[in-house]
């Protein structure tokens, strides 16, 4: 009989000998921690239970244990100090009109895990655009380190990557309280490497990350070009992976599209599960806005919410910004804005100048995406790594701005219009064949429109 079975059998008999209220009160959260040399140690949740069991029930418990196992000669009780479950995840008190009260920075994030308790699955809204990422995350939460290792989540700015990652961390922390979780941005990892090198504490740095059970690294695209950091991450990754620890990454683009990333690291990123978060559809945006306004108990009319949802399409953070404006109006005037007023309020958010696409903006986005200088893109170089981005830039100028071929040619250092035609046709053809190119273009477009 294992020690758990032993205690279950004891409880089964004990319930007939004492009243059910007593049984429920005094034996709640008790279990056997150790059994050896005829001694049984029972863990009890607090000192009240300890005193009561020691002084009142010791004899009955001892007799039952002894009848189950004749070798038992002694029972001791121990108050264990361990992470206790918070009492039935009490609902967060509604704090209307408290939105603007600022909180202490740094106090809210858990110091050891760096997780913010604000991000949980309960307030993560699932739609077709993030279904896959959400499902994969839930699978990871159930069996950390077993399925989908590593989990790689990518998607555009402000679509909930960080929320999802932190929710996974928080949930694992709740469900498996003994697991060590560490959440960090890749930038923090980098500065950790830098200071470890400077202070000659690289060993301490390594061991700090290598004994965690769940490692979550946010925004790994910033690792591009940082070779030493990539190397450290690579080794850390290998150590954790071998031990069956869960690793989760996020990025704003798929591993393939991260430039200046070492091949061995890229292939590892791709080794588990890659889940994308695309743009939310109208219904999901509507659901998000409704949840947010309800959270703050703002009674805003549906037509206003629909207006917001239909005009802000690419970024959930922007949705939140729009709601903030509506909330400010609400507070100032003590009533909800009407549609006309809402349009006025949101004018600057919805039709901000950054939304107008210019050739310059496209060139900027493309060069930034491929980590090139704009100058290189426009120069006459025929280096392979420049040629494709240049063709994509031409294609986008044609597609997004309906620019004429001669204009495009001129823009790229006085090239002939036939060069532009060739580039656009080539990319259009490749798009049909290559799924990854479609994705890349999607991400570039996000940059162009995302501001």
């Amino acid at each position, binding site marked *: 009989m294992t020690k758990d079975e032993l205690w279950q059998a004891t409880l089964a008999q004990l319930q007939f000998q004492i009243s059910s*209220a*007593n049984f*429920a*009160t005094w034996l709640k959260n008790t279990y056997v921690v150790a059994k050896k040399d005829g001694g049984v140690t029972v863990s009890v949740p*607090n*000192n*009240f239970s*300890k*005193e*009561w069991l020691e*002084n*009142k029930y010791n004899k009955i418990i001892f007799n039952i244990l002894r009848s189950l196992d004749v070798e038992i000669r002694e029972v001791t009780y121990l*108050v264990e*100090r*361990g*992470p*206790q479950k*918070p*009492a039935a*995840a*009490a609902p*967060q*008190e509604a704090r*209307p*009109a*408290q939105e*603007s*009260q*600022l*909180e*202490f*920075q*740094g*106090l*809210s994030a858990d*110091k*050891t895990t760096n997780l913010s*308790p604000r991000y949980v699955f309960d307030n993560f809204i699932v739609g077709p655009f993030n279904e896959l990422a959400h499902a994969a995350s839930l699978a990871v939460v159930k069996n950390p380190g077993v399925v989908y290792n590593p989990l790689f989540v990518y998607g555009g700015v402000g679509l909930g990557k960080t929320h999802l990652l932190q929710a996974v961390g928080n949930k694992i922390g709740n469900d498996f309280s003994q697991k060590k979780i560490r959440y960090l941005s890749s930038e923090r990892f980098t500065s950790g490497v830098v200071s470890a090198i400077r202070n000659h504490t690289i060993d301490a740095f390594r061991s700090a990350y290598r004994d965690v059970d769940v490692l979550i690294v946010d925004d790994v695209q910033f690792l591009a070009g940082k070779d030493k950091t990539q190397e450290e991450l690579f080794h850390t990754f290998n150590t954790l992976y071998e031990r069956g620890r869960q690793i989760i990454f996020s990025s704003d683009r798929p591993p393939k599209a991260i430039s200046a990333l070492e091949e061995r690291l890229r292939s590892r990123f791709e080794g588990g599960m890659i889940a994308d978060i695309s743009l939310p559809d109208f219904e999901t945006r509507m659901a998000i806005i409704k949840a947010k306004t309800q959270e703050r108990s703002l009674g805003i009319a549906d037509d206003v919410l629909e207006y917001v949802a239909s005009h802000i399409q690419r970024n959930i953070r922007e949705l939140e910004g729009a709601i903030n404006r509506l909330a400010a109006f609400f*507070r100032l*005037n*003590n009533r909800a804005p009407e549609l006309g007023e809402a349009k006025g309020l949101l004018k600057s958010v919805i039709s901000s100048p950054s939304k107008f696409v210019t050739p310059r903006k496209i060139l900027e986005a493309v060069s930034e995406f491929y980590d090139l200088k704009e100058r290189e893109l426009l120069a006459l170089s025929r280096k392979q790594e420049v040629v494709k981005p240049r063709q994509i830039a031409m294609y986008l100028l044609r597609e997004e701005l309906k620019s004429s071929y001669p204009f495009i040619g001129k823009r790229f250092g006085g090239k002939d219009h036939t060069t532009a035609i060739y580039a656009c046709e080539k990319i259009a053809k490749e798009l049909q064949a290559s799924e990854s190119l479609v994705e890349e273009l999607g991400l570039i477009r996000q940059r162009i429109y995302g501001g």
Partner: protein
Amino acid sequence: MRATILKKNFQEGLALAERVVPKTPTLPILSAVLCSVESNFIQISATDLEIGIRYKILSKNEQEGSFAVPPRPLGQFVGTLPEGPVALEKKEGGLAIGAGEFQAVFKTLDAEEFPIIPLAKGDENQTHVDAASFCDALASVAGFVGQSQARPEISGVLFSFDKKTLTLASTDSFRLAEKTVPLLKETPGPQVCILPAKASRELLALLGDRPGVLKIFISPTQIIFHYGQDGRPGEPEIQLVSRVIEGEYPKYQEVVPASFETTCVFSRGDLLERVKAAGIFSGKMQDVLLAFDPGKKRVEISTKNPTIGEQHSFLGGDMQGQKLEISFNWRFLADGLAQTKGDHMQFLLSSAEGPALIKSAQDPSYFYVLMPLKI
């Protein structure tokens, strides 16, 4: 069981014990208090299984014994009795109480069922503080404990014992208070624990402003406060035992600002008065706007409410640094000002959206940090 006790003492003991009795007890016996008659004392105990208290007072005992009885009706009845001795006797039908021409019999519960309150075993770390200054310190931070269940580790008061000092701190993530009191007996070294908010409140109610020494026993799972009646036989002996909150208290020292853009010294009473007046006009957000003008050496305190109206007041003081406009929740501001001691206070501001530090100009043992409202 037969005993005689002074009405005043019995009434006080029952009233204090009743506070701890849970409203919806998980065990029927928890709705009662236990009165034990032993040697020359009556001891009244109550618990909700998180906190336990004992109130022990001199009585004339003829026969030892104990009874468990719901405290409310008993306390109410004792309250109506004339001052002087009250006779208690356990009979067939329950507890008989007699005082002069008043007689009553209360139904009792089985005293054997009453939980055993885990008291000091002697192996805990022990330290002593002056009871009155401890209560004063606890009262000055206990009000700022976090309310959210989502963050249990800040839902209590942090006790940090060092060799010669005890530092109490609390925060609800919007504001933070810290108070240091000297210890009368040295502790072996640094030790921390988090006392639940309810235990802090009960401790304050139990101790009131009684003079004397408070002994504190600390173990990893619980903390015990023992107030003795050394040399004052008419006074009760009071003990409170509480679980401690598990978890690590955030490193709050990091949020205390160290550099300031604007520093001011004001008359504390004058500022508190103005903030309270401003509070009348504050809106739903409880906001009050403070415009600091070091050039004119004064601060303007203004509030506006769409339905009530608006007000402005001014206060002069010694000021240095930049002009600054900042908005606070007026209640939070008034709370901090009320707990700061002394006639003059320092108001130190880091920025319009950064934390502000309030402390007494005379007493360095207390400070209060408050986050502003976003304007």
